[in-house]
């Protein structure tokens, strides 16, 4: 399941909904990405996430499909927000549910690694010095994604 939305989400509520009535789930792994107050040595006051409507949903759906092929997942959910968000707000949520924890852990890592390098989102940072700028691609993200090839 994927959702692209501007609204804030509640991780606890999403876990409850995803696992409701399922008696075969033995493991739920969640990852939440938050807006932090620094990046590359600069102070950050807010982030604005831009995305490519249409293509974003397609890419996220493909990433989910790939995870379901590679691991035994009972269910999974990706929520990615767009628009302006303040420090401490959640940006992204990944939940994986499986009978076994290894599948749930690995699939969650995979989903985030692929999402960071394939899903068409861009971060614009507003900095404490009054400047703003687009966040550049990170080599560490590319390396992390490569290990799943």
């Amino acid at each position, binding site marked *: 399941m994927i959702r692209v939305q501007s609204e804030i989400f509640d991780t606890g509520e999403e876990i409850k909904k995803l696992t409701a009535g399922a008696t075969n789930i033995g493991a739920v792994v969640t990852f939440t990405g938050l807006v932090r107050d620094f990046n590359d040595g600069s102070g950050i006051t807010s982030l604005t996430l831009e995305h490519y409507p249409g293509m974003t949903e397609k890419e996220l759906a493909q990433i989910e499909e790939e995870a379901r092929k590679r691991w035994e997942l009972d269910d999974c959910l990706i929520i990615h927000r767009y628009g302006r968000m303040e420090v401490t707000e959640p940006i992204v949520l990944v939940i994986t549910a499986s009978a076994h924890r290894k599948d749930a852990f690995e699939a969650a890592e995979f989903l985030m690694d692929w999402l960071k390098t*394939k899903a068409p989102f*861009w971060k614009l940072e507003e900095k404490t010095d009054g400047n703003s700028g687009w966040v550049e691609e990170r080599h560490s993200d590319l390396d992390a994604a490569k290990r799943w090839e």
Partner: protein
Amino acid sequence: MKILYFAWLRTQIGSPEEDVTPPPEVNTLYGLIDWLKAKGEPYQSALSDLSVVRIAVNQEYVTEDIPLNGTEEVAFFPPVTGG
């Protein structure tokens, strides 16, 4: 054909999207890029270094030149930084 620009490419081009009608001899993706660049600034600078630009045709990533027949939407954007 619709052309979309995102993030710093949108800022540099000065618009999120435009409709273009290239002449029939412009029939490949790289031909389209050359045709846009030939229009001068801001296209010339924005599309000068394709190593920092990602391209999607009909919402699928494209990494090499392809024929343009059937193309409705071409998007230019920087490497992604979501998550």
